[in-house]
């Protein structure tokens, strides 16, 4: 456990090597260094995982402390880690999926001139992300939090010469900053409430000192959630994530699907004790999550950019995770996080493979029939789609279904209905994507079609591995079966106290019969299949149908196509007024009033001088005369006294 610091240290070393000397190394070396660093981190994580499993379940928590980072008076923050089952799951996901995406990138980015820079950023991201998930206190978590934000900024704007790319990077960073604003205030409030930022101490004190529903804890959790909303792209701060697709596709897979965007979910799960004590915040989390899940899914229905569809799907899936956390099903939330990491990374990498094959084309209207040219990509992509749609026995089925089930069981009927509708939408838009891309007639222009080629090995192998994981990843948590919920058992020590609190406040713990559970599962699968069926009818059986529907509901279609005009709204309501305000203030307050006052004072003296200078005649005798007159006045004064 002392070697925990090695996990982020390896990628950091990779970052330094590639960042400082990458331009002078050959591409092969750069790739080896980057992937090697990730591989070493993954191996270290595996070893720690093994060590963790050796311990008794209630002793699976280590808190290595390295040094005192900031200490002022009673405020003291140590650079410390927290290793428990929750962070272990995250570390394994980050290093494992990260390693696969690194390998994929060696193929995908092979011809890019910024090869070394790319891998340096990617390693730095891995380092920051690992810092985030391993953090032993809120401030170290915040370091990772901002670090991943920075890397996201750098990688979205990786092709900085493209205006839209650098715009998107900037937007991502600033929107995240708005979330961080809440996070920072949450840290302050936490410190002045508990006198510490160390997770273990906070949670202990929270359980001992606070009753459920306490105002302070509600404040802390809501502020933390503001941070999570920013980082995990929930309503109303989701706007940066679709734009973030300007980055290279593996980046979208790693950062904007599998790892970074799930940081908010992780943080909420990490602070489960605090949330459990603040029912209001839980409600907000669940509501925001559910609303985002449906909202993003509707936008995803009509988008034509393959990556944007996936991006909205990510936003939507993150909503499901928050829904899970919000109803107290932390295990389900984290479980979905893990399976989502597998299948969404797979889908992005598959999309990347398609884009790579088509020489940069991202519009599904100019694809079609690619099944023939890209078999590996097709089959793996299909696996991912089935997983996200929630078809048994793929991973997504287990995790999404658990969230839905828990939602209903905790008495959130409305949220359940919405989420179920969202699941149908998910299945529809994913298979719309599959059918438009891989089925039907080819709509490529001949030049592109001529160059289509299947992904090279470096890309195909990660795709295959992830496809397998998307299939089997859910099997660690099988409902109904005896001994099926291994994942939950592994994580349970982490959420024990939160569950305890929740059990005390609500009707948790009432378990329905297996029949009900089975029936609900069936319903989920039915809904998903319905979504797929509609997609098949519209896009394979009757290709003219979508246009008719679009024409029929043209207004709704336009709203969806333009993403409800949210970006335009923000631009018009926030960005532009602020800019105009700044200009007005600069012109009127700074220039006219303040500087005017300063210059005015100067001008006043200058004008007074212009008048008074006439006294200075240059004739010494006048001066002598005034001296004499002065003396006479003094004499007069003396006489008067």
């Amino acid at each position, binding site marked *: 456990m002392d070697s925990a610091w090695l996990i982020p240290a390896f990628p950091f070393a990779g970052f330094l090597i590639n960042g400082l000397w990458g331009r002078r190394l050959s591409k092969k070396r750069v790739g080896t260094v980057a992937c090697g660093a990730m591989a070493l981190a993954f191996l270290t994580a595996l070893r720690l995982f093994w060590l963790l499993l050796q311990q008794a379940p209630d002793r699976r928590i280590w808190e290595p402390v390295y040094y005192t980072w900031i200490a002022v008076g009673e405020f003291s923050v140590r650079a410390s880690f927290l290793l428990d089952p929750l962070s272990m799951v995250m570390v394994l996901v980050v290093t494992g999926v990260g390693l696969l995406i690194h390998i994929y990138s060696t193929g995908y980015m092979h011809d890019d001139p910024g090869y070394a820079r790319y891998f340096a950023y990617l390693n730095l991201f891995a380092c920051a992300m690992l810092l985030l998930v391993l953090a032993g206190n809120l401030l170290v978590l915040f370091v990772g939090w901002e670090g991943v934000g920075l890397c996201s900024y750098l990688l979205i704007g990786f092709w900085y010469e493209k205006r839209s790319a650098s715009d998107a990077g900037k937007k991502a960073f600033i929107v995240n900053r708005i979330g961080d604003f809440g996070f920072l205030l949450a840290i302050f409030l936490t410190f002045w409430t508990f006198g510490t930022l160390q997770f273990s101490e906070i949670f202990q004190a929270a359980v001992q000192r606070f009753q459920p529903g306490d105002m302070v804890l509600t404040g802390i959790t809501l502020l933390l959630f503001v941070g999570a909303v920013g980082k995990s792209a929930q309503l109303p701060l989701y706007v940066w994530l679709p734009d973030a697709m300007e980055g290279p596709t593996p980046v979208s897979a790693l950062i904007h699907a599998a790892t970074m965007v799930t940081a908010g979910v992780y943080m909420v799960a990490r602070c489960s004790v605090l949330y459990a004590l603040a029912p209001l915040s839980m409600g907000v989390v669940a509501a925001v999550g559910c609303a985002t899940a449906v909202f993003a899914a509707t936008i995803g229905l009509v988008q034509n950019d393959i990556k944007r569809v996936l991006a909205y799907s990510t936003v939507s899936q993150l909503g499901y995770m928050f829904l899970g956390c919000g109803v107290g099903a932390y295990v389900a939330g984290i479980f979905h996080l893990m399976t989502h990491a597998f299948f969404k990374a797979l889908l992005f990498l598959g999309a990347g493979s398609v884009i790579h094959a088509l020489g940069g084309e991202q519009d599904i209207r100019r694809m079609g029939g690619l099944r023939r040219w890209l078999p590996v990509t097709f089959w793996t992509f299909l696996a991912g789609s089935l997983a996200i749609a929630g078809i048994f026995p793929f991973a997504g089925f287990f995790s999404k279904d658990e969230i839905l089930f828990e939602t209903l069981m905790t008495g959130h009927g409305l949220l359940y209905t919405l989420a179920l509708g969202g699941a149908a939408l998910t299945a529809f838009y994913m298979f719309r994507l599959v059918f438009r891309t891989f089925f039907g007639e080819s709509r490529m222009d001949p030049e592109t079609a001529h160059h289509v080629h299947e992904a090279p090995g470096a890309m195909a192998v990660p795709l295959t591995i992830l496809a397998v994981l998307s299939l089997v990843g859910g099997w660690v948590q099988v409902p109904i079966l005896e001994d099926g919920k291994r994942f939950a058992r592994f994580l349970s020590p982490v959420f024990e106290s939160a569950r305890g609190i929740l059990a005390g406040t609500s009707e948790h713990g009432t378990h329905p019969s297996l029949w009900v559970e089975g029936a609900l599962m069936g319903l989920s699968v039915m809904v998903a299949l319905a979504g797929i069926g509609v997609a098949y009818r519209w896009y394979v059986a009757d290709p003219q149908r979508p246009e008719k529907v679009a024409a029929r509901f043209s207004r709704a279609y336009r709203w969806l196509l333009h993403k409800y005009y949210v970006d335009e709204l923000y631009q018009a309501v926030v960005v532009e007024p602020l800019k105009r305000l700044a200009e007005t203030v600069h012109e009127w307050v700074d220039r006219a009033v303040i500087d005017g006052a300063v210059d005015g004072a100067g001008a006043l003296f200058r004008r007074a001088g212009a008048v008074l200078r006439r*006294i200075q005649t240059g004739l010494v*005798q006048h001066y002598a005369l005034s001296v004499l007159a002065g003396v006479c006045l003094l004499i007069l004064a003396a006489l008067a006294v």
Partner: protein
Amino acid sequence: MVPLHYYLLVSALLFAIGVTGVLVRRNAIVIFMSIELMLNAANLSFVAFSRELQDLSGQLFVFFVMVVAAAEVTVGLAIIVTLHRNWKTIHVDAIRMLKG
């Protein structure tokens, strides 16, 4: 023995004439001479007080005043010469470089 205030009166008159000269004349040399008059007025009262107070320090002062006056005259006249060389006049009306 002539009383002290007679001498003081003479001294005062001399000083008044000197001040008037400085104020009313425009010829730098005459202004200079008027300054000398003022210095001499001061000298006279020094010596008169010296006799009245029976203290020779007063005369000592006069001695020093004379030395300073001599030095001043030489420097002052040299300045006037230079002025005349540059401006072709020594009328202070004409030389008003200090005008603000």
